[in-house]
């Protein structure tokens, strides 16, 4: 089994982890690829009854009208936990169980992967510890509550800016310490081989369903498939089964943040557009496209959406971009917020801010890119983002934002008639 996608990928990790990674690769081959002991049957069954699969592919009437093309939404927001993340988390926790591991660690950014892992761990009765940047803890309170409620430990990571990058590093440190009895459930198609392949494999249920569904509902393959890309797991999950369909355009929408320029002096990229603007390098176990300064120091990424706020991206995506098979695109913070309000108001679906990037891209794509039939992955729901969207919206001048005066009114009304 190749550890690489072209030049990307590989296994750049401390030696202490290599035996575990080899063990994992072996388990992946046997249980996942060969369905040993009926692993995949159990996984699919649990995804169905616990996760709520299949998720629907929904024709979006108002959005289709607005953009003059048929738009179908793949509703990963309906998956248990509210995002595609459970596909992977459930797969890995179950695999850990098959491997005889006794404990789960995971990192989380937006908290979606952490909540998905905490849920899966509770469901499968495994102790679980989640590392989360301090800043993200404060940005994503509800998800922290959820992890704690599911019985997971949540450990704040206070290094650096306290976001996903630091949380991954810290989780790797935990793993390096406890590797013999612990499995590290990485949250996206990143990290050393076999993670990128394995996570893509667990997530590809999205495109397996979507491909079948769009043929049933639209009677054809789509002209374009769109997904947001942070680490790229919903992206690869949504693209996987379409990669061989040469006429299907694949669009990976990254967080353009507030600007595409990198401030090298401060070591900060005000975006998370690794595919669009990054350069080749090695981070968190894999060679891929990165946001880095010329020395190779990783810069702090930034996005209004925590789940996209990562300086790297999955190596397979980097490879597919270089091959010209996947087209990267960016959507900035303001437009992402508008996309968020758009889907909420037009379709009655409040998307995750991450997914809102994909929605916003529809307005920036050319008619040629869209074609006549678009499948867009709504990777998650926006419940986790409510407070921060309200705050971010108030500080900007957005066209389609609703006012939140009702709280003020309610306060002013007092208690009487």
């Amino acid at each position, binding site marked *: 089994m190749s550890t690489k996608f072209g030049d990307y990928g590989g296994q750049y990790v401390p030696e202490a982890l290599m035996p575990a990674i080899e063990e994992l690769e072996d388990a992946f081959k046997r249980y996942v690829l060969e369905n040993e002991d009926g692993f995949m049957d159990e996984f699919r069954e649990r995804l169905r009854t616990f996760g709520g699969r299949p998720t629907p592919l929904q024709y979006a009437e108002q959005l289709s009208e607005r953009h003059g093309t048929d738009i179908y939404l793949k509703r990963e927001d309906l998956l248990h936990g509210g995002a595609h993340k459970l596909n992977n988390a459930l797969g890995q926790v179950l695999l850990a169980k098959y491997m005889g591991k006794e404990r789960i660690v995971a990192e989380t950014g937006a908290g979606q992967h952490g909540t998905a892992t905490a849920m899966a761990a509770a469901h499968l009765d495994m102790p679980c510890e989640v590392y989360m940047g301090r800043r993200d803890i404060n940005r994503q309170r509800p998800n922290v509550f959820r992890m704690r409620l599911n019985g997971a430990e949540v450990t704040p990571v206070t290094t650096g800016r306290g976001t996903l990058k630091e949380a991954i590093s810290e989780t790797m*440190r935990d793993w390096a310490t406890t*590797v013999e009895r612990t499995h590290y459930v990485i949250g996206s198609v990143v990290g050393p081989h076999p993670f990128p392949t394995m996570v893509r494999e667990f997530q590809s249920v999205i495109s397996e369903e979507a491909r079948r569904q769009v043929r049933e509902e639209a009677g054809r393959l789509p002209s374009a498939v769109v997904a947001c890309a942070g680490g790229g797991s919903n992206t690869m999950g949504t693209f996987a089964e379409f990669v061989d369909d040469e006429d299907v355009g694949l669009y990976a929408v990254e967080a353009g943040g507030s600007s595409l320029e990198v401030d090298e002096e401060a*070591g900060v990229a005000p975006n998370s557009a690794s595919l669009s603007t990054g350069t080749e*390098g090695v981070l968190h176990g894999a060679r891929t496209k990165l946001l880095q300064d010329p020395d*190779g120091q990783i810069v702090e990424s930034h996005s209004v959406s925590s789940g996209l706020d990562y300086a790297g991206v999955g190596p397979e995506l980097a490879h597919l971009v270089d091959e010209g098979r996947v087209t990267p695109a960016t959507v900035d913070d303001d437009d992402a917020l508008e996309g968020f309000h758009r889907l909420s108001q037009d379709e009655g679906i409040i998307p995750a801010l991450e997914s809102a990037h994909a929605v916003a891209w529809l307005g920036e794509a050319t008619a040629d890119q869209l074609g006549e039939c678009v499948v867009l992955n709504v990777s998650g729901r926006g419940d986790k983002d409510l407070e921060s969207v309200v705050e971010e919206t108030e500080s900007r001048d957005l066209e389609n934002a609703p006012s939140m005066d009702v709280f003020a009114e309610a306060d002013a009304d007092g208690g009487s008639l």
Partner: protein
Amino acid sequence: MSEAIDAAFGGDPAFVPYLAVGDPDVESSLEYVRALERGGADVIELGLPFSEPIAEGPTIQGAVARALEGGMTVERFFEAVERLRDDIDVPLVCMTYYNLIYQYGGEGADRGPEAFVERAAEAGIDGFVVPDLPAEESGPLRRTCDERDLDLIFIVAPTTRGERLRKLMERTSGYVYVQARLGVTGARADVSDRTAESLDRLAEWDVPKAVGFGISSGEQAREVVAAGADGIIVGSALVDIVAEGTENGDPTEEVAARLEATARELNEGAVAGAAERSQSTTRPERT
């Protein structure tokens, strides 16, 4: 293969201290390195700070953060090494993460380990430890080091066994970094049981074994060497001294003096351990 490093492991057990260059600034850290030499260092591992030091515990993370905060860059690292070469003789090993090695030389064809290794050699570096570069990905760097007679030192973990161990031992040169325990760098109060076990596992390999991860006292140094190590690697215990001195605003000389004293203690511990071992018959001797 660097002759200097080879020589360093030739006599007494080697004392291999680590410091991050640029912590808290270049000038001070050079003073500290000199102090370590005075304290008896046989090889010095110079940390080139990387923003994501995934193998380090809080102590060395702090050093790295202070150095980067202080404006440390790859080029400044090499310049610092050049200055050290003017006044110290011990072999210098560059400890860093692979991305910095990979990026050096800019975009395109110039990029890659060659440019980095060339510049390092020119500055006076004798070898490399790259914690996130396992044997599997080490081909290009290993080749480049071989071309220039530099060492590439691999870390052997407590979990490394069988086929993996063989692969690593065949690729390592200079010495092998025996990781005393699972986890990340950081000073500990006790020596891991796994150290002796690891040294046993490595007994058949004819390459110097330097044990690191957690050694913080002369007593520990003694134990480790008595258990069969050919050298000891000490990082966090020394970085702690730098961190404390920096925090308290102590003068560089004072901090340097403390480092020197601690180095001496560690070195003496190692020597005592070697003496113990040569009295014992259960441990195989280095050939």
